[in-house]
């Protein structure tokens, strides 16, 4: 057994950390405060560093690196700014990866290559007001009309929504088929007639990442924009989300790591009763537990990524990693605020932002409750 990262992983981690510290961290608080998505910083600069297509082969505009590299990149970005982490995660594993896994050669050339190069930003639209954890409840419709599909309905909580150029949209293409079998996946480009943006969500956390409602009003797309086969949409969505969970697990891990480092530094600086507060066992034990939880989460996340990169089954490991890392992120950031005391509760220090950012990781890409249900069911089957 070998737990060592390869030189390439270490070089990439150092490069992303260097970029994140120098360019992303300085504006993280301001972007959170003003709910501002900075496309140049949070996406185009990532493209220049070769991070927008990490896992795709070079012939499709990617870097030809593995899933572990992807996890490390999201972790390092999220360590300073969870919004930047989720921008990359939603773009790469939700927007672009289904095209790589299920797209025709023509679709890959037209849509995947510019996504991987970072010329276009990707998004994935599954959730609706009535279809969250229950994806089979999709009500957006797609009706075949000659050489076109006509989409009607709306999608909620779409990460990168409004700013993304290419959307993978799940819609019901066969109303008579059984719940899961009647769904298909479609590629919809921003600017298509009948494709509008609804309200922008005002969120607790990841506030510099745009979350938007999508509205389809007789939106006509060419028949060749059907992704995969008709009726394959549910399967495409589930496989896409399996990979996406590695990104969110890595995001949660990065948030926890960032908050932990801030807490350790503060515990060394802050003095009460003439001694640094880390000398109080109540604080020191917190730090020890935080460090241990983060290390355990990292092993789960890296293992899931390693399995995905080595062609092994990883759905269960990715679900466990996402669920565990998200819980760790929530616990660690909450304790980090506690270590900071009153200062931690103010927006003058980054830990309250990290605590707000952590919460979403327990909710999106499958709530932690759904993951417990799925993992648990598989144990007693």
């Amino acid at each position, binding site marked *: 057994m070998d737990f060592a990262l390869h*030189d*390439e992983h*270490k*070089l*990439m981690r*150092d*490069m992303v950390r*260097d*970029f994140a510290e120098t360019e992303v961290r300085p504006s993280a608080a301001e972007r959170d405060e003003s709910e501002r998505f900075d496309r140049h910083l949070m996406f185009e600069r990532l493209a*220049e*560093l*070769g*991070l927008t297509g*990490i896992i795709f082969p*070079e012939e499709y505009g990617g*870097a*030809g*690196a593995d899933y572990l*590299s992807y996890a490390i*990149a999201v972790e390092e970005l999220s360590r300073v700014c969870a919004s930047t982490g989720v921008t990359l995660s939603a773009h790469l594993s939700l927007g672009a990866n289904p095209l790589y896994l299920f797209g025709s050669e023509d679709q890959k050339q037209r849509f995947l290559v510019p996504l991987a190069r970072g010329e276009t930003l990707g998004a994935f639209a599954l959730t609706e007001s009535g279809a969250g954890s229950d994806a089979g409840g999709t009500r957006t419709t797609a009706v075949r009309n000659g050489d076109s599909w006509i989409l009607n309905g709306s999608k909620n909580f779409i990460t990168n929504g409004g700013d993304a150029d290419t959307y993978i949209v799940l819609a019901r293409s066969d109303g008579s088929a059984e719940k899961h079998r009647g769904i298909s996946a479609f590629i919809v480009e921003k600017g298509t007639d009948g494709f509008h943006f609804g309200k922008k969500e005002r969120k607790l956390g990841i506030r510099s990442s745009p979350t938007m409602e999508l509205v389809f009003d007789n939106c006509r797309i060419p028949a060749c924009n059907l992704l995969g086969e008709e009726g394959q949409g549910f399967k495409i969505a589930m496989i896409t989300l399996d990979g996406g969970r590695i990104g969110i697990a890595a995001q949660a891990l990065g948030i926890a790591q960032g908050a932990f480092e801030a807490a350790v530094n503060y515990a060394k600086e802050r003095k009460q009763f003439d001694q640094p507060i880390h000398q109080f066992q109540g604080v020191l034990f917190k730090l020890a537990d935080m460090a241990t939880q983060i290390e355990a989460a990292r092993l789960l996340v890296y293992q899931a990524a390693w399995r995905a990169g080595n062609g092994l089954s990883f759905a269960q490991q990715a679900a466990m990693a996402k669920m565990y890392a998200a819980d760790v992120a929530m616990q660690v950031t909450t304790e980090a605020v506690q270590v900071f005391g009153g200062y931690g509760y103010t927006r003058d220090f980054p830990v309250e932002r990290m605590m707000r950012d952590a919460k979403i990781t327990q909710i999106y890409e499958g709530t932690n409750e759904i993951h417990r249900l799925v993992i648990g069911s598989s144990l007693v089957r």
Partner: protein
Amino acid sequence: MKKLLVCIKQVPDMESRFKVNTDGTWYEETDLAWRMNEYDEYAVEQAVQLKEQLGEAELTVLCIGPDRVKETIKKALAMGADRGVHMTDNESHLRDPLAIASMIADFARQQDFELIFTGMQSQDRGSAQVGVLVAELLGIPALTTLVEFAYDQGTITAKRELEGGSRALVSCSTPALVTCQLGLNRPRYPTLPNIMKAKKKELASLPVTDLKLPPAQLKTAAMAPPPKRGSARILEGDTGDVAAQLAAVIKEKM
């Protein structure tokens, strides 16, 4: 085709907590994270810029040390060097600057390099001797602590940083060696695609035992962390005074 050489060193992350090793002559190496020496990053960047300017040139990166230094060589390859040479030496941290310089000079002697780039000094040993000793051993001019660099048809025109922030404009003809200082350039990030491409570049290993080394002229007798003392300096006076004092402190440190 012009041949260029950049010599780099791997050093611990300066954020690390250092512990003196058991025989008291160096730091404990376990649990340290390793990086490219910061000044060598300026050297690599400048060498890559020159390579790009020349169009046709081959840039070799050389590093001496144990197996772990390969990671740092790969970073230089990912930043744009063409081939790597690793002089395998587990004892490199014990050698004096002349021994290290002799190894580099022996390697460089037969190769007809137009220009050799090094950092001004290493962040851990900090002798600032290796670069100039290499130049001396090769009998070529050395331009040190460069903050500006230009090359045109066999002539280097450069600015050196002197004490107090003044600059000296110097020039010489190649072959030559230059040592690079903070402020010379902004090193590029090794992008992920370039990290992946670097895996395919040549990285040769040379055993150091094959070379004849001069006897050591310097030996570290003992090493110790500085004594603990109050590090704060309180500036006093009215706001204008304090601002002026603060500006002076910053200027002095820059």
